[in-house]
């Protein structure tokens, strides 16, 4: 059977708080739907095999690799991407902490790293260094900002514990 013979299926999914209904081929990945059908291009494709973490998003409260999930598997699910992390015009504590620690290099891994940190801090408001390392172990960063990620995760946790979840920014 060649690709054109597969029928398209209509699915509804909730992304960043909004319902979307899209037609997908059965072999289409959630990653492609998010990136190309919904235009959420913070979700990156780094390896297509669930090895690098650049496509990580949160689905129904769990961190997943969106390259390993078929779009139809996301039917009816709630998905959070970096675009939906903070209200428009604000930075989330994790983003603020990454800026405070001067962690930015190429930034390609950042959307996935931020989602992994969010997933960690949702579960564990005061993680140890080992817990942070474990939680980010699926996110590769070739520029080598890892030490800053550890500092930033601790700082973000501190912000959130103090009730500072969102920050104003100049930009």
């Amino acid at each position: 059977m060649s690709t054109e013979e597969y029928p398209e299926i209509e699915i509804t999914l909730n992304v960043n708080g909004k319902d979307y209904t899209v037609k997908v081929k059965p072999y289409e990945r959630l990653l492609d739907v998010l990136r190309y059908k919904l235009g959420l291009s913070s979700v990156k494709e780094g390896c297509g095999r669930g090895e690098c973490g650049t496509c990580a998003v949160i689905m129904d409260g769990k961190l997943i690799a969106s390259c390993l999930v078929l779009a139809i598997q996301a039917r009816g699910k709630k998905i959070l991407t970096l675009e939906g992390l903070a209200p428009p015009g604000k930075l989330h504590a994790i983003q603020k902490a990454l800026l405070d620690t001067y962690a930015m290099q190429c930034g390609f891994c950042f959307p996935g790293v931020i989602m992994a940190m969010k997933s960690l801090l949702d579960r564990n408001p005061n993680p140890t260094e080992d817990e942070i390392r474990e939680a980010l172990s699926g996110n590769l960063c070739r520029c080598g900002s890892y030490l800053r990620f550890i500092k930033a995760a601790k700082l973000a946790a501190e912000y959130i514990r103090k009730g500072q979840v969102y920050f104003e920014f100049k930009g």
Partner: protein
Amino acid sequence: MALPTAEYVKIVEELFEKVKKFTYVGKHMQRWDAIEKILGKTRFTADYANLYRNLVYVYSVRAKYAHAKIRKIDVSEAEKVSGVLKVITHKDVPGVNDVGYVIPDQPLLAYSKVRYIGDIVALIVAEDPYIAEEAGEKVYVDYEPLPVIIDPLEIVDPITLEEKKHVLIHDERESDIVARYRIRTGDVKKGFDQASVIVENEYRTQYAEHAYMEPEAALAIPEPDGGITIIASTQCPYEARRAISKVLGMPFNKVRVVVPPLGGGFGGKEDVANEIGAKAALATLLTGRPAIAVHTREESIIGHSKRHPAIMWYKHGASRDGKLVAVEARIILDTGAYASLGPFVAWRATVHSVGPYKVPNAKVDTVAVYTNGIYAGAFRGFGNPQIHFAIEQQMDLLAEELDIDPVEFRLKNILRNGDRTVHGQLLDHGVGLEGALVKAAKIANWYRKRAEYAKQTGTIRKGIGAALLWHGNSIGAEGADYSAVSIIINRDGSVTFRTGLTDFGQGAIQGLIMLAAEILGVPPEYFRVEMPDTASVPDAGPTVASRTTAMGGNATLVAAYKLRKKLNEVAADMLKCSPDDIEIKAPEVYCRSDPARKIRWIDLIEECFWKGISLQEYGYYRAPKARWDDETGHGEPYFTYTFGAIIAEVVVDMETGKTYVERMVTAYDIGRVVNRVGAELHAEGGAIQGLGYALMEEIVHSPEGKVWNPNLYAYYIPTILDIPKEIIPIFVEAGYIRGPFGAKGLGEPSINGIAPAIANAIANAVGVRIKSLPMTPEKVYLELKRKGLIKL
């Protein structure tokens, strides 16, 4: 006849002498693009797909054999697949079917033979990426397999370095030797006769992969006049334009290359960007539609350049009092199927081949050869990570033979101000190596830990090791070494910054803004950096060779200086004081002698517009001339060198052979720190990449030339679990007169010394010396077992 010294040379030297206090330079500052990146709004090349309708997708059909003659390519079945618009083969290339970087040895689309597993025989252009891939299976190629050579020692004799008899990979060139370089200094025979100790060893390094997180991508757009615009993930827009124009057979001015931010480069996005850009451009040319090509991770790993594997024989001699008397070396670099930047890599390796030491007698021979492996080219360090792995272990072994502490032994031999390099180059100032080593040793508690670790028992052992490094800045005698920027002050007082240098994550452009801000007296927030685009930014040469801060920085100083001169004159006129008395601290401009006399920055700019003073300036800088004598390896190969000292601390588990790097102190003499955040991140990032190179990374070919680990599940790069607890960056600012305020580059040097420092630390911990990379648990364990140091 001596030419008068160019104005730009004088400007850079004058600023070096004059300016010693800084507002922005050397400070921790947030990079200009941090906010858009943290919000996930930055558009990388593949993200542009969302902005174009009617896109077509390009899929590359790659070779089935690593070495074979092509008898016939049949695309008729692939063309019949519904949704396929065009199948492109070598016959469809309107210009020159070649994307070779230094040597025209690399067809874009293979025609007479394939030379490695990544060679492309056809391109499918289709309405949908899945259809394109499916159609790719229907391209039939009739191959006549040829013997596959993966071992470079089948190409050259390890002793004589003469070419052996074999089935030629590049029969059209009549030889598989790509390049040869040599150094002949003094008389090594005499040197070794004076030596009290001689240490001779073979070292090997592996094929290594950049593994930038963003795989290669390019998007081509047809223009109304028949030209083509290519948005591409490339380090070098002007180089990409040259290569793509050649393939398309179009003049340069009809090919436009635009470069969005890159998700990492590390040297890898040099020539492959030319290839992928040409693939997208061809598809657009032949279909009239916008075309996108994005490599999968597998294609990226199989289809782009690698770090050259090296086989190195080193013989070092030292006198009883610990002075180096002679170095002899033979270096074989495997450049894989195509030359790529191999000849330049071999040259850089040769230049640095004795390390940052005073060596009176040296004989070095380097040869780069073809094999049927993935082609090797530019990768952070450019030949230097390989040779440093060998040299720095040799230095430790000499120290051991002489029973001198390794740091003390190095201090007896390092280059200092006033010394000459092995090439006879006089380093009259700006050599901060001693400072770097002494500081690193102090901060790492070298002497105390060295003594402490000598007394260990048990199977978990700690070790500490040192390595030095040097790295010639910029392109050197490899080629034309110039840089350019333009700075435009807009009528609202905002500043536009343009350069053909790209940012692939390193943050060097931030350094350029800080330099311009320093001279102009306006905060970096006033600046907007325009995307590199051959339609607007000046050709600044390639973004390679750790040259952005030094070379781009000089060009920036020149442009900013010229603007500042004009601004001071107009302001002096407005404030009735002398131009030298003008202080600009935007949004204010005042007389230094009487700060009450002031105007607003915006008024100064408006006055310039009324007076007809142009506030668009171009800054150009040509590097000081480099010289290299091919017969002797003498001359001045690079105008200056970055120096460094690395100290690594490891924990080795003798029962598993596993090494954990606990701490690293990295001390670099980079002349002057410009972008401090960028410098620290380079020190950390280079250390982490070097750790991967040292302990885990290796591309493995099967005997048939297939790649066994073409994705990140099997090509291991460091994760956050593998990295040290601490990396301490230290900077020495020895100041080099022809760098911007004395600055030199750090991009590449930050990886050169890591693997040997770790190797020396392992030797210190458990008493075994691993002479091949990567130093995996298996190698360490088997060596411990072979030496009877572990019973298990």
